[in-house]
């Protein structure tokens, strides 16, 4: 029989105002096995913990029940306190009488009764608790960063800086991400390439960092400290080791009609290509969808011209298995394609472009070599209309768009407007907005410069229709402040489309068992206090994959994630969750039912010799659980028909004891 101590927390008045704590202490004190029962103002306080520790010592307690707030809040606190007094921490159970009682019930009698019942359930469970010892598992001192944009780059650099190995998996042929496509950055207007490419070079040169470009994560197994990841290196048909990035192949390739994705399809490239001059790794890639050799078997020009023999048309996808202690998701975003907005004419008018396309049209390395020319007739636009919040801040019922604010559009549009006005003062620039949001250091100043200094026409209102007529874009809009309908003849319309998480994020989240919100942004472990960690241990979040951000915010979050990873990798061993599954070999049938539902591959089988009846021996196949690998979900315990598989800390008997206590008359 256990000797159980029960402690009822008042939580100030949080509990005590609704629950008659004295009555609860008195009622639970009468339960079999309870040798001490008391109430206290703040059990989690230093003095509350001392009270508990004194009672453990004085009353020789073997089990403790704390009736207080959610175990998600202070279970660890009370377990630690018990441990300090020599009591196994897993002999402590919490009855949640705050979130589940005092905060939701008003009637004192009813709340008190429920608190007593929850207390009884916890006592019933403690009666069956057994001391548990946490095992340890080693930490693989290497991190994986999924995504090689500025977020991934910064995280990788910081982790490498601390002396740990980092791998970056980037699905494109080069790292750099969206930032590499941007022309200038707000609010300082420095050139994105000028600040990004040195970091890309740092990555390439850092001995601790290995880049898997043109690669994707294929599968993730394992758990914090011990992930096993299969990486698919997609065939680029060019030997990365041999290729020097000289670019001769990309000049000689006869297939010139490939839409250039880096320039948002505004110009073309060859079938063999290097996305941009500063690409890292600077290695060519063959686009098998366009390569004549790959499609017809006739051509081979690039191979002929390649001085180092790097071209290999027979290359196959390769799976690389790597082990990691931590994984960072930095999967980034894409601007939404606004094709579903017929009224804005993106799909029909060549001169309706997205903001990112405009970036390329203004970039010196872009399709127009930095001169702003509109796509249709390559003429300089004299009237430019910007439309804000395309696909952002939509009603929940609006299936075309996103409910959230994409956060960066107001600022980059101000930047675009300003740059156009500065370079081409003869251009009239209109910005249609719902609100202008400029919280950030020097942001509002920046925006005001656009309005006041550069004379950009900011109009609060919505664009209703854009149609092309004889090379002119007829823009119909409403000015909400004056209530007038406006008709503007524009040469170029720029849509600030919503930021949306990269399509690959969903499947990566599933592999990582990291949760996502309804918009497919990764969920953080705590919105305020743990913003760079996923709820899944060992998985961290960097950049826009967690939510819309600008570059400085992305970089700071990237460094924060790196700090968390470093904190993890700095440990030699991790304490395992002792609440893991355990197989009773005497009952095990070896039927493999449990193995089939284990997400971690924690169950293995072996033939073992057992004593049969009357001095015989027999050999049976039985399961055993790798305690370091098991995460304690309990799927196996239900799959097991014989009841051989049970979960420590949440055993069949314990849960049924709780059921019994709750349902008791």
């Amino acid at each position, binding site marked *: 029989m256990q000797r159980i101590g029960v402690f009822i927390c008042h939580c100030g008045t949080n509990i005590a105002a609704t629950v008659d704590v004295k009555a609860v202490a008195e009622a639970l004190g009468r339960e079999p096995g309870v040798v001490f029962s008391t109430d206290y103002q703040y059990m989690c306080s230093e003095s509350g913990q001392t009270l508990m520790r004194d009672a453990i010592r004085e009353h020789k307690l073997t089990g403790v029940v704390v009736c207080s707030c959610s175990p*998600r809040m202070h279970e660890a606190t009370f377990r630690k306190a018990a441990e300090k007094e020599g009591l196994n921490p897993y002999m402590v159970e919490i009855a949640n009488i705050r*979130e589940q009682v005092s*905060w939701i019930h008003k009637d004192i009698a009813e709340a008190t009764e429920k608190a007593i019942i929850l207390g009884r359930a916890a006592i019933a469970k403690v009666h069956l608790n057994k001391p548990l010892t946490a095992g340890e598992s080693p930490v693989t001192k290497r991190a994986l960063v999924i995504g090689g944009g500025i977020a991934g780059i910064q995280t990788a650099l910081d982790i490498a800086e601390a002396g740990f190995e980092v791998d970056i998996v980037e699905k494109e042929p080069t790292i750099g991400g969206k930032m590499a496509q941007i022309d200038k950055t707000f609010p300082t207007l420095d050139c994105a390439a000028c600040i990004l490419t040195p970091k890309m070079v740092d990555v390439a040169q850092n001995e601790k960092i290995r880049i898997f470009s043109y690669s994707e994560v294929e599968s993730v197994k394992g758990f914090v400290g011990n992930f096993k990841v299969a990486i698919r290196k997609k065939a680029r048909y060019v030997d990365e080791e041999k290729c020097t990035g000289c670019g001769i192949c990309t000049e000689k390739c006869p297939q010139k009609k490939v839409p250039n994705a880096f320039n948002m399809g505004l110009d073309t490239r060859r079938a063999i290509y290097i996305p941009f001059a500063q690409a890292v790794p600077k290695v060519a890639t063959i686009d098998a969808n366009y390569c004549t050799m790959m499609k017809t078997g006739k051509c081979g020009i690039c191979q002929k011209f390649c001085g180092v023999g790097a071209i290999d048309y027979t290359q196959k996808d390769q799976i690389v298995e790597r082990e990691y202690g931590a994984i960072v998701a930095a999967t980034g975003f894409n601007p939404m394609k606004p094709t579903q907005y017929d009224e804005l004419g993106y799909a029909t008018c060549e001169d309706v472009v997205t903001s990112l396309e405009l970036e390329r049209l203004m970039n010196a390395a872009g399709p127009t070599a930095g001169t702003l020319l509109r796509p249709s007739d390559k003429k300089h636009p004299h009237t430019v209309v910007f439309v804000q919040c395309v696909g952002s801040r939509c009603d929940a019922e609006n299936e075309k768009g996103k409910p959230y604010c994409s956060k960066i559009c107001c600022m980059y549009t101000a930047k675009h407007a300003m740059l156009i006005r500065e370079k081409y003062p003869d251009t009239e620039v209109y910005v249609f907005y719902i609100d202008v949001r400029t919280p950030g250091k020097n942001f509002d100043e920046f925006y005001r410069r656009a309005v006041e200094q550069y004379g950009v026409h900011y109009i609060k209102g919505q664009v209703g229709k854009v149609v092309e007529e004889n090379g002119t874009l007829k823009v119909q809009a409403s000015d909400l402040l004056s209530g007038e309908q406006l008709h503007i003849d524009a040469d170029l319309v720029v849509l600030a489309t919503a930021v949306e998480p990269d399509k690959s994020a969903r499947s990566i989240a599933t592999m990582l068992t990291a*949760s996502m919100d309804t918009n497919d942004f990764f969920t953080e472990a705590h919105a305020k206090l743990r913003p760079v960690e996923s*709820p899944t241990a060992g998985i961290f979040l960097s950049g826009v994959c967690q939510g819309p951000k600008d570059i400085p915010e992305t970089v700071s979050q990237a460094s924060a994630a790196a700090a968390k990873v470093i904190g993890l990798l700095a440990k030699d061993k991790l304490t395992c969750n002792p609440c893991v599954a355990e197989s009773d070999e005497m009952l095990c049938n070896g039927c493999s039912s449990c193995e089939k539902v284990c997400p971690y591959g924690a169950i293995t089988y072996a033939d073992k010799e057992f004593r049969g009846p009357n001095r015989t021996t027999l050999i049976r196949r039985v399961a055993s659980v790798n305690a370091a690998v098991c995460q304690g*979900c309990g799927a196996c315990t239900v799959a097991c028909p014989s009841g051989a598989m049970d979960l420590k800390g949440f055993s069949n008997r314990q849960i049924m004891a709780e059921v019994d206590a709750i*349902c008791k008359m």
Partner: protein
Amino acid sequence: MQDVKEFRPKIVAFCCNWCSYAGADLAGSSRLSYPADVKIIRVPCSCRVNPLFILRAFQRGADGVIMAGCHPGDCHYTSGNYFARRRMTLLFSMLDYLGIERERTRVEWISAAEGAKFSKTMNEFAATIAALGENKRLEDLRCKN
């Protein structure tokens, strides 16, 4: 004359630690009430819920049993709720086949962010059970006196 006691159903809610239990916590911290008849048992994952526990609850006097877990796809353990979903689908179908009221058992997917859904679900479920009345078809009279 004997006074007629108002029927207060007993409801057991198995909640997974990562989503639904946290959802219940959020309901609590948001002060979103639901009947005191609902008592929560914390399990690591919905896949920990053995049909035995559900029958046990009915045996011991529960009038309704609800299991709440992470939304499919969001399981902390990747796949636990998918297995739980199959198990409960089959179990509930069997209970129905035996003529045991279908409404006494329920599964809901409630995330840590859905405090309001937690409260709403429990209110609805408690109302359903109250309307159904006492569990007679899966009762064990020995536990009732």
